[in-house]
């Protein structure tokens, strides 16, 4: 099972074992604040926005067009921004660090 670390807006780091299908669901299962996942992971709402740690940007499967378009809905988007519901959990994700943006 890969381990994923969430860094919340208050600077707190929480490393959890990822058993769910995608990173948004992992966050929800562990009650990580700031990843709301309103649409349940269908790429419609952008409330699962995270910023992946710089070294991981090129290591994740790239965002598809749809994801980038939905992402443009979120505040404060940068080149590290992803919709966590569109990052499937795989063994390769072991050690992934994602930052949860502060509330708008």
């Amino acid at each position, binding site marked *: 099972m890969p381990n994923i670390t969430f860094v919340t807006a208050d600077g707190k780091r929480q490393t959890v074992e990822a058993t769910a299908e995608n990173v948004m669901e992992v966050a929800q299962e562990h009650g990580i604040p700031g990843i709301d996942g309103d649409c349940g992971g269908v790429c*419609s*709402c952008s409330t699962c926005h995270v910023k992946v740690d710089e070294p991981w940007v090129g290591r994740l499967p790239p965002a598809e067009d749809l994801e980038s378009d939905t992402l443009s809905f979120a505040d404060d988007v940068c080149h590290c921004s992803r919709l966590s519901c569109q990052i499937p959990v795989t063994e390769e994700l072991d050690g992934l660090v994602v930052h949860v943006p502060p509330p708008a």
Partner: protein
Amino acid sequence: MTQIPDPFKEAKEKGPVLAAEFDGETIPMILKLKDVRAAAKDWETYSSDAPRRVPIPAEENVRTVRQYPLEVDPPEHTAYRKLVEPFFQRPKQPDVKAKIEALIGRLLSDALNRESIDIIHDFAIPLQSHALTYLLNVDEKEAELWISWGIHVFKDGDGESKGPFMEQYSERMFREAEANPGDDFFSVLNAAEVDGRKLTMQEKLGYANIAFAGGRDTIIHTATRIIHYFAQNPKALHCVREHPQMVNTAAEEFFRMFIPLTHLGRVCPHATDVHGHRVEAGGRVSLCWSSANRDPDVFEEPNEVKLDRKPNPHISFGFGVHNCLGAHHARAIMRGLITQLGERVSHIEIQESRELVENEAAYDRMVGYELLTARFTGLPSA
């Protein structure tokens, strides 16, 4: 597989915009998902600063007030929206969610006990009205009066708009809350400030207006169409019973397909070229959510209901700064409804139905039902 026709299918094949006439005004309707999203984000070109003219046709004859925060642009919009945001977040609280679920449970028990139920008047309208009391944090008995306002406050029923009643009622509620403040929607708005001043009565009425009118037919039609869909597709009901975790994707697919709100308008402050159509300064354009939701460049088999559709980047709740404040509420209600129908109902038999169709010069679009009666049969264990 159920196909649900898209009235904008042919127009989309011809081009990105349909120039449509509404009461003598030609309004280019933006039809493609990417274009609607881009326009919704670009509030400087496509402005919401247009009291009573964001809806198409305009609502100048049915209400007197500007709706807040719908009909305001940034930067003012931000402060107006913040004032009411905590109420619209309430449906995410476990206690409020539990009340919504209990309400659906009561309405379903009642439906299961009858030979025939009027889905609109004895299920969907009470569902919408009672649930709104939880959102606004007011006494549940207020729902009884709201129920009498029909499906659509401004259009419904006996041909008489209930808009003026609703405005008078809201004003009375603000005055009563002033005399007897609590932590309800009316009291909180009485105390609220923008730019260091209290809200005017017109502004407060503008907030109440959209909460009552905008959050009404949308919920009623979506709930009614979900019930109708499960009546016509017993396998789908079986499927959500067997796979309860499908509730989220199923709800989003229903929001995509059954969006009751065909489109909304924006005003161009300057002359604007909208994909080849010139709009003069002060003219309107339409953001056609319902057409964008069926864009074949984005959605595979766009006119088919797929309860496990994923991704499903629909824009039933809009896009950008004005995205629907009522979305948490709508999601809590429809997810609860789908789950409980799966758990308790074996099948639904439609008795009588009459579709409600929006007839415009350029298109006819089915938005819901004006009549729907049915018989619910329970599962042996329910």
